[in-house]
Every structure is written in C-alpha cells, then in structure tokens.
C-alpha cells in the first residue's frame, strides 16, 4: 500500500515539476523572420526592435515569463514560413506569432493563425490584404497605400499638376503607384505617364530619360532599398533632373540612411513620405535611438520600430487580458489600443486591426554635414485606405 502511495506521489511530483506543469507560467512567442539571405538586414533590425523592448521592459508580463523562440525563414519562402508557424504552434506550443518581414510569408502563416486561433502581430510586411487573412491578426508596421495615397493627395494640394511615375515592376511598386496616382488624381492632379522598371535593374538611364521627355511637374518614384536608390539618384542627376528643375517625390525607402549615404549630394531636395525616421524630433524617439545605438551600434529604422511597437502591443494586450493567451481575448484587447511610439502617436484600428499612424512629409537636407530627412509636414491618423474602401 505504501509503495502504491509513493508511486502516485512520485507521478504527481513529476507532473508538477515537468514542463507541462510549468507551461502555465510561461508565455511563448514565436518569431519568424529572415535572419539569413537577401533580407537578413531587415530581419535583424526587426529582431533588434523586439530585443530592445524586452531589454527595457523586462520579460515578465502579468506575472508570467515571456519566452521567445526565433526561427529563420531564409527569405521569401511561404511554404517554410507556414511550416515554421505550424511547428511553433504544434510542437513548441507557442501562444503568439510575430515577426513577418515579407508579405508572402505573412500571408501563408496567416492560415495557421486563423486555424489555430493564435494572436499574430505583423512587424513589417506591408500589403493591405494581409490583416484580412486571419481574425486574430494585428499589424504594427505600415501599408504602402497608407503612405502613398495621402502623399498623392498632399502633392496635388501643393500645386503640383502633373506627375510621371517610375516604379519597380513588382507588387509593392505597383501598389505604391496605384495608391499615389489615386490620391493625386482625386485631388485634381493628372498622371501624364508611367514606366515600370524590372526589379533586378542595374541601369535607370533610359527610364529617367522617358520621364524627362514627358516634362511633368514632378516625378514619383518607388524602388526597393539596396543598390537601387543610389543608382536611381545618379541616373536622375545624370539626365539633368534635379530637385531645382523638377520636384522629385518618392516613397520613404529611397531616403533611408544607407540610400542617402550612397546617393550623396544628388539627393538633396528629394521629398519623401514615410512613417518613421530616426531623426524624428520627439523626446521618446531620441531616447529610443540612443538606447538602440547603445545596444546594437547602429541607428534604428522602420523595421526596428515595427518590431519594437509589435512587442509593445503584445505586452500591453497580455497585461490587459491578465496573461490569458486565448487568441480572441488578445485580439479584442489589441483592438483600439493607442499609444505614443518613437515614430509618433499610433493606434490599432478597431475594425481592420491594422495600424493607424501619422504620415510625415520630409525633405532631404544637409544638416551639420550629414544628409538627413527633415520633416516639414504631416498627415495624422491615416488609416489604410484600401481596407477602408472594402465592403464590410
């Protein structure tokens, strides 16, 4: 009899001490990002944002410990992203999924979030429809239409009557063009021509010349980061298009830190629209940039702030639900949340669960010998217009 009781006690002890017993005390977050390959820099910056938030705010929320499991998706590989999300849910029992730098990966993993009813926070991927793919998903980054439609509207209101668009021939480029032209023409402007440049494009000369031939008031540009902004800047200057002769408008990518460094003085005067710049003048941002530099030795960028705010959303949602990791509970807690981010005031829309934020209009200027984006105008509380137009 004694042995039987001992055996039962032993079993009980094992169950209590075993990981299953402790699971109630840990909240697991799965982070799916490209840590290797072409988009490694994006993934690392986003992850740095996550790490910084955890560094600043500790790893205990609502009395439970936060455990982060990181998985490398390697680049654009939706089947890998979906599989990693599945494995995180099924094998590692994560409660929340986040990361997601790239659209195809986010779209594929959304299925898992919807099926398994897990709270998912997208930290970067910028296509409008992503948040419609799972009712448990929120986004803390940006969508291209969000920026470019109001940018087009703003441009028309500045007295710019005609525009020629040069964009990269792929999803984001076409999105940017469509949104900008929509906003621009709705406010009375006219798009006099457009050209799409191949994504892997080494030479912009011909495209820039076509733009020049059309003689518009302004040129609107979208190219992905990396080598292209600098090459484009040089091509523009080469064909004699400078901000003095024609307004050059672009999506913020072309004026990110690296791009400006490589474009050099050719960039001065370019006007861009974006949701975040490390030089944004607010006390919170100055602190954020200082802490980020101390921890990682470089400036934060849009990816960092997307990851940082994503983590904040997760922490605040968990605090609100008291540590309850049920997908529905978390998303309900997230809806309507508003706070001050290093980029400015942001909120999570109640209906679309997407981010609402301020779009800043900036001009590239030389300040203290360095090229920076100086914010000179802004449009607050911008929602994603594509979803706003969708039938409810």
């Amino acid at each position: 009899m004694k042995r039987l009781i001992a055996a039962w006690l032993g079993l009980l002890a094992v169950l209590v001490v075993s990981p299953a017993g402790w699971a109630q005390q840990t909240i697991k977050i799965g982070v799916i990002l490209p840590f290797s390959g072409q988009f490694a820099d994006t993934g690392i910056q986003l992850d740095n944002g996550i790490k910084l938030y955890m560094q600043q705010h500790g790893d205990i929320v609502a009395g439970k410990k936060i455990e982060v499991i990181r998985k490398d998706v390697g680049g654009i590989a939706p089947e890998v992203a979906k599989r990693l999300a599945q494995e995180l849910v099924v094998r590692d029992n994560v409660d929340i999924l986040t990361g997601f730098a790239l659209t195809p990966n986010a779209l594929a993993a959304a299925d898992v979030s919807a099926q398994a009813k897990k709270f998912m926070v997208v930290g970067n991927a910028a296509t409008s429809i992503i948040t419609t793919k799972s009712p448990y998903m929120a986004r803390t980054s940006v969508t291209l239409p969000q920026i470019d439609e109001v940018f087009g509207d703003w441009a028309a209101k500045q007295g710019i009557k005609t525009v020629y668009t040069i964009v990269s021939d792929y999803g984001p480029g076409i999105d940017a063009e469509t949104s900008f032209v929509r906003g621009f023409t709705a406010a009375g402007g006219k798009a006099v021509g457009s050209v799409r440049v191949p994504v892997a494009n080494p030479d912009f000369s011909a495209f820039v010349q076509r733009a020049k031939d059309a003689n518009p008031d302004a040129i609107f540009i979208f190219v992905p980061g990396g080598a292209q902004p600098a090459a484009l800047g040089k091509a523009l200057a080469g064909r004699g298009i400078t901000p003095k002769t024609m307004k050059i408008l672009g999506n913020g990518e072309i004026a990110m830190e690296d791009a400006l460094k490589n474009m050099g003085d050719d960039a001065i005067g370019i006007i861009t629209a974006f949701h975040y710049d490390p030089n944004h003048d607010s006390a919170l941002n100055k602190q954020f940039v200082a802490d980020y530099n101390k921890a990682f030795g470089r400036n934060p960028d849009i990816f960092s702030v997307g990851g940082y705010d994503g983590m904040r959303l997760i922490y605040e949602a968990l605090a609100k639900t008291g540590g309850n990791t049920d997908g529905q509970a978390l998303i309900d807690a997230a809806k309507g949340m508003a706070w001050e981010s290093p980029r400015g005031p942001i909120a999570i829309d109640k209906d679309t669960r997407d981010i609402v934020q301020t779009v800043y209009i900036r001009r590239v200027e030389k300040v203290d010998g360095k090229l920076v984006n100086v914010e000179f105008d802004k449009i607050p509380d911008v929602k994603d217009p594509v979803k706003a137009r969708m039938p409810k």
Partner: protein
Amino acid sequence: MSHTRAIDALRHLAARQRWRPVEVAFWVATLLPFVLAPAYLTLASQIAITAIFAVSLDLIVGYAGLVSLGHATFFGLGAYTAGLLAKAGWGEPLSGLLLAASVAGCFGWLTGFIVVRVRHLALIMITLGIGLLLYEVANRESWLTGGNDGLQGVVIWKLLGRFDFDLYGTTAYTYALAMLLLVVLMARRLIHSPFGLSLRAIRENERRMSPIGISSRAQLHRIYTIAAAIAGIAGGLLAQTTQFVDLSTLGFQRSADLLVMLALGGTGRLYGGVLGAIVFMIARDRLADVNPQYWYFWIGLLLVCVVLFVPNGILGGLARLKPRDTQ
C-alpha cells in the same frame, strides 16, 4: 548468337530491377516519422516533395547528362496549375495533380525542342534563360498569379473525400510519400529499361549514337518531357499541401538548391536525389536554428568538399566502399 545476347541483356536488366534489402529498409524507414516525430510531419512532407523534384532532375542530369539550371520552371508551372485550378473552384487534389503534371509536361515537351539542340554552356544558359523568362511572365501577369504576394484563395478539398489537410501535416505527408513511391517506382522501370540504357549511352558518348540507330535528340526530348511532368507533380503537391503558391516556386534559387541536393546525394543513382533532399533539408532546418545567418557558408563548404573528395555524392562514395562485380 545475337538472339541469346538479346535475352541475356533483358535478363540483366530484369536482375537490376529486383528490390534490394537496403531499398526495402528505406521505404519502411519513411514510415517512422508518423511514430517517432509526429510534430515534424509537415517538414517530412516537404522533404518528400523535394525528393520527387530531385528525382526528376536526376533523370535529366544524372541519366541523360544534360545540365539544366532552370528545372524550377516545371515545378512552378505545376504549382501554379494546381493552385489556379483550386482557386477556380475545383479543389480535388488527385485530378489537380494530374493536370499539374500534364501542363508541366507539355511545356517540357515544347521547350524540349530547343533544349535538346544544344550542349555545354549554351544548354546551361538556355535552360536558365527559359526559367528567368517564365519568372518574369509570372511576375508581370499578377492578375493571374497574384504576382509578388502569391496566389490567394487556394482551397483544397479533402483527399479521397475523407482526409483533411490539417495543421499536423498527417495527410500531407501520407499524400506526398505515396506520390514519392509512385515516382520512384516509375523511375526505376524507366532506368532499367532499354530506353534508360540508351540514355546512359548517350550521356557517355553521343557521337556514337546515330551509327547504332539511336536518335539521341528524340530520346533526350522524351526524357526531358517526362522529367518536366514529374517536376510538375512535385510543384502541384507543394501547392496543394501548403494551399499557397508564389513566385519562389519558379525562382533560380530553387533550381540552384536542387542541383546542390543532387550533388550531395549523387547523380545517376536513383536514390541519390532522395538522399540529397533529405540531407540538405534537414541540415538547413537544424543549422537555421543554430546559426541562421551563415548557413549558406556551410552548405557551400560541404558542396566543395563533396565535389573534391566524394565525387558522385554520398551514394557514390558508399558504392566505392562496397566492392562490386558489375556496376
């Protein structure tokens, strides 16, 4: 005299077709993940799909001797076909797979006319060029393919009307594994047939073919088409098990990775592609956890070492360890 020789040849071929114990053991081992690693079934299904893809490339590269850098073209075509069919409303998996194979095979037959006319660098460049062209088309026609974002709304019905493709991957793995078995069985018969033998003859010495009555172009065209169809099956499987298709199914990266897998496992040995796929994908999964940033460095190093020290891949190395009378 020649009559007995013909019978000897056929008997020899038949002997080669017999199942070896190692092979049987392999197939039994493929059932282990169900029991030992049920949380990894999705990974296992993707390995099986890649193995099918690798076998199809081996038919061209290993057996026919044509170096192709654009085999992902057929994979992607199969994937998009299966995906588009499902999106249009017909989500039955098996018929979708058949269509995927047919479309890929058709395109293989069409491009085969061009491909069999060239060798060496021209062949590499043309297969690469065709692949890049199709990628551009898919990118451009985003109204059809979903472009960069990928194909949305792919809904696959239950397999055989009963088995749902769920989060755990059980159905996916069973489906992919069954297809792998079918493909390997088919490849085995092909390789050990007179047709297969003629392919190897062409690979060894093409100039001698027409005097002995083999039209090398026709044979190569045939195997190219078959390999394309099989690659289409692999692509269709991926689309159906993940319910998503995007441009990466057509990309150069996929073709290059496949070639690496084949090199690791050993070309021209039926199971080389399968083994290569298993090693590569498991290594990537494990290494990506440990050291994601520089996984490509290690795989590059492994490739260099394999080529220098273990040419003909792992299976080739193993074969040299075992003394054989014929081979």
